């Protein structure tokens, strides 16, 4: 069935059956490959995107439920004030290793900083708990979020 969705500020028509995870529409239909598939069961966070500005797991978000929502992916984060700060912090600290989970980490980090401009390390640990990184770049992720908060405050 044809569905129109708003993604990264554009209205796009996609052909997807009800029940199709947003993840696969983003990746296979819209060819936005920055959003990753890691587990398919909302247990790793690699597929995190924003729905009306809030982080969601796109592997467990269904296409029929997002017709009226604004969807934002990692590809749009450089244009976002918070997103750009997080990216800057990630570069300063060289957070990434393999990098496969980092789109999801950054999308979650942006969600946290929008909710809490001055998080503590404990806040970061709690909020980011569901974003797995098998390279275990965690302490740089934690430091990166705190650094991004500093950048935003400046």
């Amino acid at each position, binding site marked *: 069935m044809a569905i129109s969705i708003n993604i990264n500020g554009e209205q796009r028509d996609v052909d997807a*059956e009800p029940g*199709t*995870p947003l993840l*696969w529409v983003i*990746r*296979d*239909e819209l*060819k*936005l*490959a*920055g*959003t*990753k*598939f*890691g*587990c*398919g*069961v909302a*247990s*790793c966070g*690699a597929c995190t995107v924003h729905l009306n500005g809030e982080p969601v797991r796109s592997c467990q978000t269904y296409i029929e439920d997002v017709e009226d929502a604004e969807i934002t*992916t*990692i*590809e749009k*984060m*450089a244009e976002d004030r918070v997103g750009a700060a997080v*990216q800057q912090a*990630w*570069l300063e600290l*060289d*957070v*990434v*290793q*393999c*990098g*496969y*989970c*980092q*789109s999801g980490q*950054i999308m979650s980090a942006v969600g946290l900083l929008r909710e809490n401009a001055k998080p503590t*390390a404990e806040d*970061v*640990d*709690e909020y*980011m*708990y569901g*974003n*797995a*990184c*098998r*390279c*275990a*770049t*965690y*302490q*740089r*992720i*934690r430091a990166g979020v705190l650094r991004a908060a500093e950048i935003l405050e400046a």
Partner: protein
Amino acid sequence: MTTQLSRRGFLKTAAAAGAVLYVGVQADGAMAASKSANALLNPFVKIDSDGNVIAIVKHFEMGQGPATGLTTLVAEELGVSMDQISYEFAPSDASVYNNLLFGPFQGTGGSTAMANSWMQYRTAGANAREMLIKAAARDWGIDAAELDIQNGQIIGAGNAAPLGEFVTAAADFAPSETPRLRDPSEWKIIGKASTRRKDSPIKINGEAKFAMDVQLDNQMVVMIKRTPQRGGTVASFDDSAAREVKGFIMAQTLPTNHGVAVYAETTWAAMQARNALNVDWDLSAAENRSSQDIRDEIMAALDADPVFNVNQADLASVRSTVDGAAKVVEKTFYFPLLAHAPMEPLNCTIEQTEEGDIVLHDGAQMPTGPHMAYQQIFGLPADKIHINTMLAGGSFGRRATPDADYQVEAGLAFVMTDRSRPVKLVWDREDDIRGGYYRPAFGHKVRVGLDEAGTIVGWEHQVAGQSIMKGTSFEGFAVRDGIDHSSVEGIADSPYTIPGQALGLTDTEKATSVLWWRSVGHTHTAYVMEVMMDLAARAAGKDPVEFRLAYLTGEGDAERKAGALKLAAEKAGWGNAAPGRVQGIAVHKSFGSYVAEVVELSGNLDDGIVIEKVTAAVDCGIAVNPDVIKAQIEGGIAYGIGHAMRDQITLDGGAVEQSNFPDYEPLRISDIKEIETHIVASAEAPTGIGEPGTPPSAPALANAIAQLDVVVAELPMAENGVSFA
């Protein structure tokens, strides 16, 4: 393993495409100086006439840093800044891009990327510099000795020009077999902590292309329904329900009969169609053992005399010494199967060109493996097969199998079609967790005898488990006199000088396929050695650091291991844990590097533990990219601790019980509060860094937990009542 450095010869060529300078090593080691583009040329450094410098990186990037590290070597020697150089991954051609520590085989593993490339890439960069300088010197009518390249400029004797101006002329000069390498005092990039990763910018904005991101025109996505028990075969299948899935194309049994390939238009369609497929399996010859059976077999082997006497010790004599010792410390250990679970599930994409060549797009850890397999599958010569190495979303060893398992699956799925449409093979997380190739199960039984003074007088050590190398194509390379060294590495070659040590090994059956897993045999041997060292120290009434140092008295190996141990102890404030906290320490040599770690934790067994801090000291020779080294130690520690705490793969009647992250839980951000890494200053050649952080982490944790009154000898910790708070 031997290096081929002595056979190196250099040559240069101007590429057919024009003013491009390649510098490298020729395959047969012979000097050659043809100006024509040569298929056998081994270019590590490519420079175009605009002065764009590209390092050709022969090791794949799974996060461990070679795209930065090998590029650093070229930049340093050539004389460009890290901003003035980019990188490309090498094509699959083992005759030129082989791992010098693997012989005629192109691949990444064993923490060898920097160790085997160190001289090769510096030499290539130095040759490029010398050839450019000679061209400039000729043009300017001055002595080449007066010139250098700094920040991409050829400078000296009052002259200056961008190196790009002399790229064409440089090809007139022959590369040297021994170009002048820059003295360490000249280094501007090597050892500099502020160097940033070359692959960071594309990994923060969605630009980075992993193999999973390949989308070729008209491609089909294939998922495979595999036998639930190893050795099972397809009796028949019914795809009537799968046909109802929109986007389903077809289903066919693999030629190996171990699964059914489901072809679809999209990934989601392939997933749904595969779920809808009904397969009737023939499990009559399939593996049906359970984890308990594996454990029972290993424990029985530990109670019998070993099949292999690894160090040719007099076992009876060692036994009698231990039996007669003033104190005996005895422990039996067990290590379960573990999955690698890299973030990016396994996948690759295969296509045929109009010329009939086969192209594989893959996060290829060992390109030579699929390259050889595809010659068989497609009946093509090596030069008709091409591998496009892409970024890999982790591996930890899983992307390197001796039988190129997933690439062969993709090849078989493709060869069964008319090859008009590319095939992308995708595994999901369940395929990954259940797909075999696990860290093998191992058991150890150790009896240590101490005299009245608390000195070790005998160490009887038995190892039993599933050999990684036996029965694979690597057997001839890795097994000597029946002994798979990877089963006993870290004991047999430990820098400790332990009096009266007997080391025995018995191989047990493989109820599932097994594989190297970040740090290979050291995953279990370091644990046993370091937990036993602590138990022996405490039995002797001695400080664990002082006790270890007594067996690290020699020069070289022992000295470096002792150095890492002392530095970690000093930086961690060993013996001065904050109130309510306990510390544990471990030190281990692996892949040529020495790593010591102190785990400091709070909490207790009832409420759970909190890992407050891990302090590490690493001696990996010259620290080429210190921040990459720190990142690898951070990741290596966490990988070891995460699995030790709660992970295991178990079999029930031959079938894997775990399926995805909810029951194979990754380490989470809150599980370790802080990791601090210190690097031992060294002038030695660089050694491994991707793996050596892992081995000491679990035993350091165990030695801290031991002070909460539980010595964990069978992993995971969770099975011993130890959990995170």
